[in-house]
């Protein structure tokens, strides 16, 4: 259920580290909690993001929630498909629902592995 090849934050973002780039999105748990997404507000290519800091927001039919970057670096790609089809985050949060790609300024620190995240998510579900 929770991909083992990704790293996670307690605020329910995931990061896939490949060399000096990271792909970032939100988890299955996050999209379930939010419900049907209606809008995704992401940074622009060239923007700097900082681990633990706000990088954008998502809106669903019942809530709005800030997104926090799991990594630090420069945004090199943004999933433009989400502008017109935010439901992709609901349908495929770890695939077609990816949000941004970041060129890392430093290797990420303090992120959770799948097992630790599963525990954290289970705790926050109650």
């Amino acid at each position, binding site marked *: 259920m929770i991909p083992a090849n990704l790293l996670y934050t307690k605020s329910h973002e995931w990061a896939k580290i490949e060399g000096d780039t990271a792909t970032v999105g939100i988890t299955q748990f996050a999209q379930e909690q939010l419900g049907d997404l*209606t*809008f995704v507000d992401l940074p622009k290519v060239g923007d700097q993001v900082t681990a633990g800091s706000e990088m954008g*927001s998502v*809106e*669903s039919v*019942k*809530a*709005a929630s*800030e997104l926090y970057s799991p990594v630090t670096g420069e945004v090199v790609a943004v999933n433009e498909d989400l502008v017109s089809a935010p439901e992709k985050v609901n349908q495929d949060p770890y695939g077609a629902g990816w949000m941004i790609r970041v060129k890392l300024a430093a290797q990420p620190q303090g992120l959770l592995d799948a097992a630790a995240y599963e525990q954290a998510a289970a705790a926050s579900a109650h």
Partner: protein
Amino acid sequence: MPFVPHTPEQIRDMLAVIGVGSTEELFAEIPAAMRPKSFDLPAGRSEMEVLAHMERLAQKNATAQVSFLGAGFYDHHIPAAVDALTSRGEFYTAYTPYQPEASQGTLQAIFEYQTAVCRLLGMDCANASVYDGGTALFEAAMMAVRQTKRRKLVVCEALNPIYRVMLASYTANLNLEFVTVPHRQGRSDLAGLAVAADDATAAVIVQNPNFFGCVTDFAGLFQGARAKGAVSVISVYPVLQSVLKTPGAMGADVAVAEGQSLGLPLSFGGPYLGVMTCTKDMIRQLPGRIVGRTKDLDGRTGYVLTLQAREQHIRRQKATSNICSNQALCALRALVHLCLLGEEGLRRTALLSMERAHYAAERLTAVPGVSLLSDAPFGNEFALKLPVNAFEVIDALTARGYVPGFPLGRYYAGLENCLLVACTEKTSKEQIGMLAEMLGGMLA
């Protein structure tokens, strides 16, 4: 149980928290003369006594004056049906209801109001309205700041000075930078605005017609602003939008208006109506309530509050604005007014008002020593240069029952001799003739 909002202990505790010694000290900023001397109210009066008292007060109003005042607020005729329809019990509330979806009629009226103002201004989306034109303009500026994440606002000096004061006051603690581009003899300085709107600019903010009555096409300016990533904000006079190039046609991103001229009486400054519209790209930044139309499970048309994730009850401190209501009754009046007049009626109102103003300009500039401030095109309002101080003329003619206009010197240094004169379809040629004669007599 005594009906006191706070016990002496609670008051002491609250004062201690904020570090103020006494209630007296808390209110020290309010001058003594402005504080109530006593809460010991006189005994109740009879209905007849109260009526007589109110009539005495009402007689102090100078309602018989012939007025050429405008300056952002215009005395248009309001058909009697506007009062009759809007005062129906089903509609008579000042607010969007708290159980909105249970009030389909109210939501439908707001939806139709939004549709009407979008068509009038040529824009994609509108909210359910905000308090007045100045609030709308401030909210428009903040939309631009949020959208662009920039902090510089380029403002045309020919924007209504009341709006400029409101902008400065509302943003006093927001760390924004204002660049005010001076007017040129009452004209909006297109070249100056274009230079000021650089790639650090959140919004370029203009008005059409501007405060001096000058009509300008801002399409080129807006195109240039877009190329710099800045948002174009325009404030307009809604009645004239039936004949002028619309904000939409000029390529504005956000268009706002003081809605008073659409069926609201002047009534000493309010309540008025803040019309707010924008392009589809900006809708996430639009504050306040937005009504949408949808289908229910059985396929029937229904109205809902939509895009509520922008609002305070969901977004908390990150909401687009702390405005979560609207001027529902005033918006309803605007809707009824627009529907009664129709496209053709509104157009005729605009053309008649303009025709009267152009006649007035001709008659008044025939008085020796009086000229137009500039040769810029104007609609139903124009600035005159007088050979004497405008305040003197206003004092003298007001005493004779004619308010000749608004003294531009009140807001613009160096224009103490300038008078801003407005006409509507209610202004008669006889009144214009009388004004010209009185002015001529005074200056002779």
